[in-house]
């Protein structure tokens, strides 16, 4: 079944007309955004507000000899100039990263990547602040940089992290998973072994809104109010408390409307801390907004994995084992935002959707003179890399076996009766039924017909490719027994309060960046307690107004906070049932819940609505023994497992043999994210991720020259797809609910970003089969495709 979700022609009142429950519903956040009445961080204007600009290093690796700020301080409109030395005096020169490393707020000893923060200016307006940067005189002693990741551990490589005591090389960490010996044994007895070097280049989430903050420190109250572009306001508040030594209850972090995040707005950046310091120093509100270059050269990048993939199989196409060796470039500081025990994120799911006998991964991560980051761009904690590896190597195996790639996948899927399925790297897939998803994608695509068309075209010398990818994601981090970030457990709070008139407010710990939380969470609550979504206010993004939780990334909002919302509503409903029993003078057991009211079983005429119950809960008259007044509840939900969405993607490309330009003609995405709350929003999430996939596969890459200059420092150089590079997306869905999630939902925010790049690359490689091409690395720009056609494909780094 294909989702053809035709826009309805009904009026604007959809939100009100939709009484309860799941299904397409127009978004509650849209009216303000459509009128230009959204409130993004740069829209915040406070009386007396000053503006902050940051001076950044032009060099990738250099010793800071001196910083002379005297001319800048004397410039018109300048209120303060702050350097690393100033911060050192305050104990704020360094801050912890989300991976228990440290990162310089402003450089004191050295700069370690181009674009690193060196000093900042606070001035009356943004023009004056920017002008004053020109007047700061920094003397650098330029050092040899480490740019080639393959040379980072060479004995003579320059030492980047001499700030770490006892550090003598650029080694960041080693990590392994699976069983090396078992895997070796499986490989030894396999009929066929295929090996392929696969690079996932450095890319950048580049949300349309850059990062920024407005800090307002009230010295009298001792309270800091910080508007900032953060996907994780609570985690940030705790970190600020640790970094700045301010008491946590005196910090209010507000994430207002956010113009896209994609993981770029998870880490704490030096700029946020600078804005706080700027406000403390000047006693005024201070605004800092990155420009686009700053965003691209200094904030959380993604990927940068150099992988060697190996796959072992029988001659008839039974996959036996998968093995990989990874060299990971973490940049100058390990700023990876991943659970502490998962330094490689969830890369461990590289065994994909297949029932295999053994798997092993060995990873080495290193420091280089590049910007820190690594986990971003809708990657589901590195599952992008894992899925790319497995789906590319499976295609290499199909080519080796001369087997249809769809058939090879179908032959190796984990079967429905095997769930919950424990992978060879220890992940417990909660539920899945892969074949129907795959078949549906093939049906929508007209797979057999496409293969026939391809054959005809090949005979005419035309280049057409069909690429498949099938992914399983692990999202919804995560169970607190083994997942935390900097010691903060990854459970999510949620509070629900029903007002006397039956209207409600739900307070979330997560924060939308466009995913539509204000709508879907209202729908979840509505489904559970029968109050129309229009009567439910969703409050989020303000730490003073919401319960603690770790924020929105890794597709975790629905799996974790969505579960919290459903369960808190059930708590409220349970209490409502007690009150209803008193109102109807029957026992609790005699009542049944019928969307929005409790009825006496067998007597539908005797019923009370949730609104009536709410009034009673707050009104006069006795309540049942032991029941307090009011109708509200709170919860802190600790997921028992991750959820495992899956999907089947098919991409059709045409390549101009003369110019090597790739055109994505069709893209079919069939997703299974379990229970579907709002199909319109799900479709939107998928569409966006598919576009990311086209970007990464065909054009996006952050590269560096040998001196460490970033070559993707503007949107002229870092290319993002426009409407002309992407097709009209074709989507479908299957529903395999999660058994442990209260409403069976699995999360979908990153599925398409994870699943689409291998489909596109597989399609391009398939198109180039007549040229004997088995692999070509992203980004598949015309020039790189042309190289591949001539048998000289090279890795991008």
């Amino acid at each position, binding site marked *: 079944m294909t989702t053809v979700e035709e826009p309805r022609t009904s009026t604007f009142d959809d939100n009100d007309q939709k009484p309860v429950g799941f299904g397409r519903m127009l978004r509650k956040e849209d009216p303000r955004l459509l009128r230009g009445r959204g409130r993004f961080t740069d829209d915040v204007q406070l009386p007396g507000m000053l503006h902050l600009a940051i001076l950044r290093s032009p060099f990738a690796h250099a010793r800071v000899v001196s910083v002379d700020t005297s001319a800048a301080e004397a410039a018109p409109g300048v209120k303060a100039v702050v350097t690393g030395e100033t911060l050192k005096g305050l104990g704020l020169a360094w801050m912890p990263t989300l991976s228990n490393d440290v990162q310089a707020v402003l450089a004191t000893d050295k700069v370690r990547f181009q674009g690193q923060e060196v000093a900042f200016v606070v001035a009356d307006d943004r023009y004056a602040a*920017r*002008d004053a940067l020109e007047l700061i005189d920094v003397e650098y002693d330029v050092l040899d940089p480490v740019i080639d990741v393959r040379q980072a551990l060479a004995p003579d490589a320059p030492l980047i992290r001499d700030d770490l005591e006892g550090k003598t090389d650029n080694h960041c960490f080693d990590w392994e998973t699976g069983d090396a010996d078992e895997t070796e044994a499986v490989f030894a007895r396999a009929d066929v072994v295929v090996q392929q070097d696969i690079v996932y280049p450095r890319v950048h989430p580049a949300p349309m809104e850059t990062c920024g903050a407005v800090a307002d420190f009230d010295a009298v109250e001792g309270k800091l109010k910080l508007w900032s572009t953060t996907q994780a306001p609570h985690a940030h508040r705790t970190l600020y408390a640790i970094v700045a030594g301010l008491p946590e209850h005196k910090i209010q972090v507000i994430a207002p409307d956010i113009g896209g995040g994609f993981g770029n707005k998870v880490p704490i950046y030096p700029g946020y801390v600078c804005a706080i310091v700027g406000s403390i120093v000047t006693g005024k509100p201070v605004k800092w907004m990155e420009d686009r*270059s700053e965003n691209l050269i200094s904030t959380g990048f993604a990927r940068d994995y150099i992988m060697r993939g190996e796959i072992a199989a029988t001659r008839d196409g039974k996959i036996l084992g998968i093995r990989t060796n990874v060299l990971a470039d973490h940049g100058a500081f390990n700023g990876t935002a991943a659970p502490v025990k998962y330094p490689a994120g969830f890369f461990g799911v590289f065994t994909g959707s297949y029932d295999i006998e053994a798997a092993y991964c060995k990873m080495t991560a290193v420091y280089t003179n590049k910007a820190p980051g690594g986990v971003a761009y809708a990657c589901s904690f590195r599952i992008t890399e894992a899925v790319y590896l497995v789906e590319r190597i499976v295609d290499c195996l199909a080519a080796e076996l001369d087997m249809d790639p769809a058939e090879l996948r179908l032959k190796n899927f984990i079967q429905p009766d095997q769930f919950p399925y424990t992978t060879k790297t220890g992940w417990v897939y909660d539920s899945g039924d892969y074949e129907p998803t795959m078949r549906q994608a093939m049906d929508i695509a007209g797979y057999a017909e496409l293969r026939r068309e391809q054959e005809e075209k090949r005979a005419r010398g035309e280049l057409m490719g069909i690429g498949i990818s099938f992914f399983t994601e692990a999202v919804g981090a995560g169970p607190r027994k083994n997942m935390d970030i900097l010691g903060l457990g990854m459970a999510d709070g949620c509070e629900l309060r029903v007002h006397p008139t039956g209207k409600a407010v739900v307070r979330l710990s997560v924060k939308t960046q466009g995913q539509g939380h204000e709508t879907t969470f209202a729908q979840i609550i509505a489904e559970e307690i029968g109050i129309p979504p229009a009567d439910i206010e969703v409050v989020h993004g303000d730490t003073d107004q919401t319960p603690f939780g770790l924020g929105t990334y890794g597709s975790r909002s629905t799996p974790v906070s969505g579960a919290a919302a459903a369960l808190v509503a059930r708590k409220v409903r349970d209490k409502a049932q007690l009150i209803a029993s008193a109102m109807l003078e029957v026992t609790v057991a005699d009542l049944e819940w019928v969307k929005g009211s409790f009825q006496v079983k067998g007597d539908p005429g005797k019923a009370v609505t949730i609104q009536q119950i709410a009034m009673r809960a707050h009104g006069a008259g006795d309540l049942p023994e032991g029941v307090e007044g009011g109708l509200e509840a709170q919860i802190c939900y600790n997921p028992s497992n991750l959820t495992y969405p899956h999907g089947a993607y098919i991409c059709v490309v045409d390549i101009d043999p003369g110019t090597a330009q790739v055109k994505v003609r069709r893209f079919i995405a069939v997703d299974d994210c379990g229970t579907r709350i709002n199909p319109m929003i799900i479709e939107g999430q998928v569409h966006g991720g598919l576009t990311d996939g086209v970007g990464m596969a065909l054009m996006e890459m952050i590269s560096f020259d040998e001196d460490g200059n970033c070559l993707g420092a503007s949107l002229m150089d870092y290319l993002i797809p426009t409407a002309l590079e992407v097709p009209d997306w074709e989507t479908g869905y299957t529903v395999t609910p999660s058994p442990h999630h209260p409403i069976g939902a699995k999360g979908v925010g990153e599925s398409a970003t994870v699943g689409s790049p291998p489909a596109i690359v597989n399609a391009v490689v398939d198109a180039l089969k007549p040229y004997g091409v088995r692999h070509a690395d992203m980004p598949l720009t*015309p020039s790189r495709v042309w190289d591949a056609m001539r048998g000289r494909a090279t890795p991008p780094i």
Partner: protein
Amino acid sequence: MQVPAPFEYERATSVDQAIGLLERLGSSARLVAGGHSLLPMMKLRLANFDYLIDINPLHTELGYIRFAGEGAGGEVRIGAMTRHRELLESDELAAAFPIFRDAERVIADPIVRNRGTLGGSLCQADPSEDLSAVCTTLDASCVIRGPGGAERVVTMEDFHVGPYETAVGDGEMLTEVRFPLRPGGGSAYEKVERRAGDWAVVSAGAAVWLAGDGTIADARVGLAAVGPNTTGIPEISAALRGREPAEDLYEQAGAIAARSCDPATDQRGSADYKRHLADELTRRTLRTAVARARS
């Protein structure tokens, strides 16, 4: 967001007043039209000027596409302030020189085309710029006005002195570009870009003029992004003149294009690939230009 360094804003009221300002202010002043190249460079502080002279008000004076005379000896005169969108939308221009519409469809994006101008494109003198290649292909000449209304006319070859450098001196202004009208003409443009709106990896323009017997009376090819400046290739013209249009002839022209250009390897592609494109696109545009000349 990046912001430019301080400068004085001056608004032009007429061409001669603008030239007067340029004369008075010297090299500290710069004309700004669409601004899509200049202002980003100033925001990134790669370029700084004390004065910007806004010539957008001169659109009334210099925004035009005029046909002067017909057939041999006639010409099309386009004012320097004519905007990309106007060049794209002019049916008359597309009929005379279809290469314009081909090129304008792929120059920057529709919003930029609302503002960007022919004169601004040429004066930026970016070696990857498409309209320069179009003008080279069509054997255009540029009218440069100086103090006291003195005008001089230079060929495209002389107009581009080097990358980002033109024959327009201090106190001078490009006011018009002239395109000779010749009978039996057809033209075409093709661009390979990594993404819509990107600068060319390589672009090629071709124009052919067929004689009454169907042979090629004259032909010109202009390439962008394959060397220090937009390149016209006389050797191709020489090879094509007097010949019957045919695939092997286009191949020959393509081969000349490939060996005549001097591309550099960069983010957009390898030098080898660009050389290949010079060949491929030369063949394609010649093919289309001939087909159009015949129809």
